[in-house]
Every structure is written in C-alpha cells, then in structure tokens.
C-alpha cells in the first residue's frame, strides 16, 4: 500500500472477485494481521466483491467496482462500491433462521459481519457502498507499494 491508502477500479467479472481477495490478503498481511485474521479479511472482501459483481453490477461491462483500502490509526478500512440499484440492508434475510438454513444463497453479508469488527452498508440510487473495519493491533509494513 502506498502510504496509508490504496484504491483501484475493477471490471464486473469473476476475475475481479479473485483479484480483490488476493489484494485484501496481501494488504492485511502487510498491516500486521495474523494468518486467521488475514483469511477472514480476505474472505469478507471476496464476499463483498461477489455481491458487487453479481447482485450490484450484475456483470454489466459498463459498470465498475471500486475497491479502496485505508489504514487508519485504529483500523484497516476496506470500501467496496458498485454501480447497481442499491442493496437494502433491512431486506437481507437471516441465514441462520430455520426457514433459511437450507437455502443455497444469502450467506455473504452474514459471513462479512462475522469476520469483520464493523460493517457499514450504504445504499444509494447510484449503487451500494460497503465499508469493512478490522481493528489493527500488529505492526504494519508501512510504505510498501501496492502492485495492483
């Protein structure tokens, strides 16, 4: 990460999902998180990217995904924005309720919330922004240039 912030724009493709996961894994490692935390952060970013690509932008080649990483004093903050119709957090079913347990989808946001310390979902008419927060406690390798 160059300084404390890194951002990129990505296409609405499955490759973006893998790329977002790999970038998150690398930046989380550089930020001093342990192996389990790196896996959790990478998976949360993967799930957010899946939502953005599939449900937000619906693979539309004209629409982009914005991915941003910021290291603050207290947190690694990751923001994923899409250009879809907007996800209403109030309408996300609980995947743990008995009637939803055997559904084949609908666990992405739940996993993100399980793995991150705080999650903010900000829908608008121009898309959805999801912000993921993980409290930092290790020593970051500051000043490393991202290769994305």
């Amino acid at each position, binding site marked *: 990460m160059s300084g404390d912030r890194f951002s990129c724009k990505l296409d609405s493709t499955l490759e973006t999902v893998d790329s977002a996961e790999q970038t998150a894994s690398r930046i989380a490692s550089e930020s001093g998180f342990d192996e389990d935390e790196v896996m959790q952060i990478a998976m949360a970013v993967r799930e957010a990217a899946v939502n953005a690509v599939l449900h937000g932008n619906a693979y539309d080649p004209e629409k982009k995904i914005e991915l941003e990483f910021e290291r603050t004093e207290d947190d690694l903050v990751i923001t994923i924005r899409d250009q879809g119709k907007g996800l209403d957090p109030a309408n996300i079913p609980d995947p743990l309720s008995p009637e939803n347990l*055997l559904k084949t989808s609908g666990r992405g946001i739940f996993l993100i919330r399980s793995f991150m310390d705080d999650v903010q979902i900000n829908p608008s008419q121009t898309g959805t922004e999801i912000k993921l927060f993980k409290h930092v406690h290790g020593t970051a390798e500051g000043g490393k240039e991202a290769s994305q």
Partner: protein
Amino acid sequence: MNLKTSTRQIDGVTIVDCSGRITLGEGSVVMRDVVKDLLSKGQKKILLNLGDVNYIDSSGIGELVAAFTTVRNQGGELKLLNLTKKVHDLLQITKLYTVFDVKDDETSAVKAFR
C-alpha cells in the same frame, strides 16, 4: 487452485475425493456436475471427502447445501468427511454443521450409510 475431484467406490458408497477451492464459478460448477453425474448413474450414497479442500466461500457453502438437498430429495444420502479447520469453522458459524452428517473416519463413514 480450482476444485479437482476423483471418485472411488467402497461397499456401494461413492467417495468423492475433493481438493482445492469450492468457490463461486468453476469450483461450484465442478461440485454440482459431479453430484449430478453420480445421481444420473443411480449412485445415491455419496461421501464427500473434503480433506484437501482448503477454502470455501458462501457460494461453495451453497453448493454443498444444494448437493445435500438434491441427493436427499432423490432418496439418497450425502455425508461429509475430513473437514479442514477452516471448512469446519464455516459450517459451525452458519449453523450447517448439525445439518450435514459430518464424519472424520472413512471406514465408519462408509458403514454409516444405510
């Protein structure tokens, strides 16, 4: 690494040895096709050996649920074998660990099929 599978038979049970990642895209499709193919051949006792599955995302979890319900709806049984810690933890937090019949020993898993 994308999902790779191979199948073998023991006492009427089809064991599917899986390795790699079960994730959105190719990994999930491979899993779906394997189960579909086995069911089309009448092989309805399926033991998924996930010992070398090092990563699974929500789509992969959904694919396991789909496989479980599809096999059950056709009068068969699907069990899981040798979960890695990551997959075990994911099934725990999604409350699916008690939905699936999870085994950690192949011999007893095979015997557990009716």
